[in-house]
């Protein structure tokens, strides 16, 4: 008898993950949170949200828009999973150094579960993005709407991760006393959470820069990847410095 998950059991597993039923301290530690189901879910939900982002190029009749839809269905899940691939070793080491006690596989399970929650939320907000895409030609508006949707999904999934980490710490086998708001264990979880988010965000923003274009500026060629040039931080710096120069020399 094979252990290949059926479609129904995969949907039930996703539902239970979103409801927080698969991320209790015991389940994350013991390994009952099924990565072999959530890996494919991360790919599928990323592909769904990627397809919603691609509607802008399709609605604007950009050349190669349908090809871009296919590219985005690969690139959006790749953005999240490649970022995890790059950051995971350091995230695991930080967790061990700060005494949070999560094992290698448990850390991986928890982070993949968080990515699935993030992508599920983003995909659920996709219909709103698609609706506005059909009626909007403004590139700036669509960029802002994408940022708002991914921002909201990101904030809620970060809250999900923090809640799970707190549950893990409260249920820690090495810590029999209840965790107070000022306890060192709680501070360790808070510190690790901060380092995790900072590391993931920094690498994620550069990964996004590397994998662009996502929305596709009207009139610009829609390629799978743009030629490698600079970095996300460098680009933000140049834009900020350019704005500062423009405001100090208004005649230029």
């Amino acid at each position: 008898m094979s252990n290949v998950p059926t479609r129904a059991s995969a949907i039930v597993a996703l539902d239970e993950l979103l409801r927080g039923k698969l991320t209790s301290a015991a389940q994350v530690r013991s390994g009952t949170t099924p990565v072999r189901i959530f890996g494919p879910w991360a790919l599928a939900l990323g592909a769904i949200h990627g397809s919603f982002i691609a509607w802008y190029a399709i609605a604007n009749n950009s050349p190669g828009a349908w090809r871009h839809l296919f590219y985005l269905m690969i690139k959006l899940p790749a953005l999240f999973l490649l970022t995890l691939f790059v950051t995971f070793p350091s995230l695991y080491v930080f967790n061990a150094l700060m005494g949070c006690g999560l094992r290698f596989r448990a850390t991986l399970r928890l982070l993949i579960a968080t990515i699935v929650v993030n992508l599920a939320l983003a995909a659920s907000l996709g219909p709103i993005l698609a609706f506005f895409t059909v009626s909007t030609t403004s590139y700036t508006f669509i960029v802002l709407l994408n940022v708002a949707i991914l921002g909201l999904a990101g904030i809620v999934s970060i809250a999900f991760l923090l809640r799970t980490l707190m549950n893990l710490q409260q249920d820690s086998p090495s810590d029999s006393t209840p965790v107070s708001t000022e306890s060192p264990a709680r501070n360790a979880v808070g510190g690790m959470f901060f380092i995790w988010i900072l590391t993931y965000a920094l690498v994620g923003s550069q990964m996004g820069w590397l994998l662009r274009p996502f929305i596709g500026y009207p009139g610009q060629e829609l390629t799978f990847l743009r030629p490698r040039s600079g970095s996300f931080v460098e680009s933000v710096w140049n834009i900020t410095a350019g704005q500062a120069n423009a405001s100090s020399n208004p005649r230029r």
Partner: protein
Amino acid sequence: MKSIQTLVLPAGDVLRQGIEGLRDPRQVPSLRWSLACIAIVSPIYGFAMGSFNLDLSRTLYPLFSACKLPIMIFATSLLCLPGYFALSTVLGLRNDLHAALRAIVSSQAAFTLTLASLATFTLFLYANGITHRAAILVNGFMFLVATAVAQAILRKHYAPLLARSRKHAFMLCYWLVAYVFVGVQMGWMLRPFIGTPGIPPTFFRAEPFSNAYIVVLRLIFPGS
């Protein structure tokens, strides 16, 4: 006769609960009743709204608007629901989802009931020969009144949920922001509702779809 009574009698309850306060959460009308109410009652105001400057050449306007008002309400809800469902689930509020949806849909039923009750005012003002611009303002005012009533009822129906968990405040806020954000654009895309005099009736405007927010922004900042 009995089926008409089962539809009409709770209508009074929906509005009264907003005024007297909800003593028992079970008094919130059922989801099925609220949906039927929106589908049946909302075309009444749509019909009245499209009856501006009515003559033989404009007979299709009331029919188009009667179709478009329920489409606007249902399509906006459908677009906002997946996000509401997913966020409720992640925040651990899935057990309250049915109660929350009942509260939301009953407030929309109250919105349509209030609009329908104001239809006679709108028709009366149209009969007085008001201008197209005044007709837009009158309808805007009627929607404002109906929205205020719906808000009051939504807050009453949501009160037991808010008492149970503060997370419901976030979900209520999400629903209101998303519904208004999408609803404004949906209304813009489905126009004309009233119909400019001299322009033959069409279901959608002949021009391509545009973004309501960008149009407003360009009105405020002409150079942008």
